[in-house]
């Protein structure tokens, strides 16, 4: 589903990604953890080209995303992105947020899009908030709307960029719950997160990133109980 070969990313003279290789299969849930500044978010943002790649290849759903012949808007619509800061459109109702993609990108009729949107809002437990505006919602509710907005395009994979980091502790659970359901339904997911519990419970594989490289990857059991690398051990000691 997602294949990355020797990905490098520089911001000016600062090399943030120093040769990333990874392969994520369809239906797999991968959680990327690591200290801040390790390049986790940059890696995720490269996958739907919110950041331009400096060198290397990224294949998403058999399309080379940096190929000039690839329709990047199409690829983006096939890979949902959930942001730390939600980034809902504040001037639109919750339902309108969710239906914008289906109507403008997928060219669905308004009636059809509304049906899709309502179904999704009910799925994330916000059917009663369809006509509310984002600023009237709690953080957890906003993030669930953001997930519904991405799902409305029926994507093949979902990217989560620290989806619970901006939430009050008591609101984290409701968002993780939605993500868990999504994982059990077979969605391909790449999640940058500090939620070790979620990684342990839901991930098929856990990647540990530090200083622009993937230091270690393993199944959650092995990763948390038998970390191989010194840097992983040191990090886990600090967060667990």
């Amino acid at each position, binding site marked *: 589903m997602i294949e990355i070969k020797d990905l490098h990313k520089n911001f000016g003279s600062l090399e943030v990604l120093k040769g990333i290789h990874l392969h994520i299969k369809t239906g797999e849930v991968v959680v990327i953890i690591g200290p801040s500044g390790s390049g986790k978010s940059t890696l995720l943002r490269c996958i*739907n080209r*919110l950041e331009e790649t400096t060198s290397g290849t990224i294949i998403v759903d058999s399309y080379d995303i940096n190929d000039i012949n690839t329709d990047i*808007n*199409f690829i*983006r*619509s*096939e890979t*949902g*992105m959930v*942001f730390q*800061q939600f*980034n*809902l*459109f*504040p*001037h639109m109702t919750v339902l309108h947020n969710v239906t*914008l*993609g289906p109507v*403008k*990108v997928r060219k669905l009729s308004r009636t059809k899009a509304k049906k899709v949107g309502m179904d999704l809002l009910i799925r994330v437990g916000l059917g009663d908030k369809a006509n509310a*505006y984002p*600023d*009237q919602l709690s953080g957890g509710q906003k993030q669930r709307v*953001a997930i519904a*907005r*991405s799902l*409305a*395009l029926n994507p093949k994979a979902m990217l989560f960029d620290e989806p619970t980091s901006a939430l009050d502790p008591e609101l984290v659970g409701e968002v993780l719950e939605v993500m868990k359901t999504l994982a059990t339904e077979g969605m391909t997911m790449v999640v940058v997160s500090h939620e070790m519990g979620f990684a342990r419970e839901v991930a098929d594989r856990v990647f540990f990133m530090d200083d622009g490289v993937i230091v270690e990857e393993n199944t959650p059991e092995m990763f948390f109980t038998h970390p191989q690398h010194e840097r992983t051990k040191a990090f886990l000691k600090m967060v667990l």
Partner: protein
Amino acid sequence: MGFEFKYSVVWESIPLLLVGVKLTLLLTLFGLLIGFFLGTAAGLGKTSRSWIFNKISGVYIESIRGTPLMVQVMFIYFGLPMALNTRIPSLLAGAVAIALNSGAYIAEIVRGAIQSIDKGQTEAGRSIGLTQFQTLLYVIWPQAFRRMIPPLGNQFIISLKDTSLLVVIGVGELTRTGQEIIAVNFRAFEVWTSVALIYLVMTLSLSKILSITEKKLEIKA
């Protein structure tokens, strides 16, 4: 003998002044309408990554903002026709000057409002597969436009008052009408008082309309 304010002069002047008001409003409306399009284009040009759009917009904005409106008016009415060996009606020259002038200031308002919208909004729009133009149209512009209203209102009021400068090319707007009345009756105090009050009524109404629009478009929270 003390000065006596003759109300009768005011009443007699008003019908004449209203003819001037009509031109003032027409010039303002036309000038701002074109100015808004020019300003939007130049403002978007300034936020564009295209070097050429950026430069063209920059030159336009800086050259207009860096020269006095009075000079621009005379350049358009007296200067340009001489170089082009033609004549243009003073009303047209006046409207063009107001449009060009307000456009440059509106461009900066548009640019500032667009750049004030969080980058995450663009990213969210692009991430659901919207094109750059769709993102601008559906996500950025509606939010930016709300932020433009107060400074746009300011610019509208400035442009309305700026039309008075068109007396120098003989456009028969409100100020010019005032001058003409005084040339006949010599009652400068009454006539300028009336003229000032009429400008004040127009600018206050404009402020009111804009504040109502702003309330109507407010994002619900």
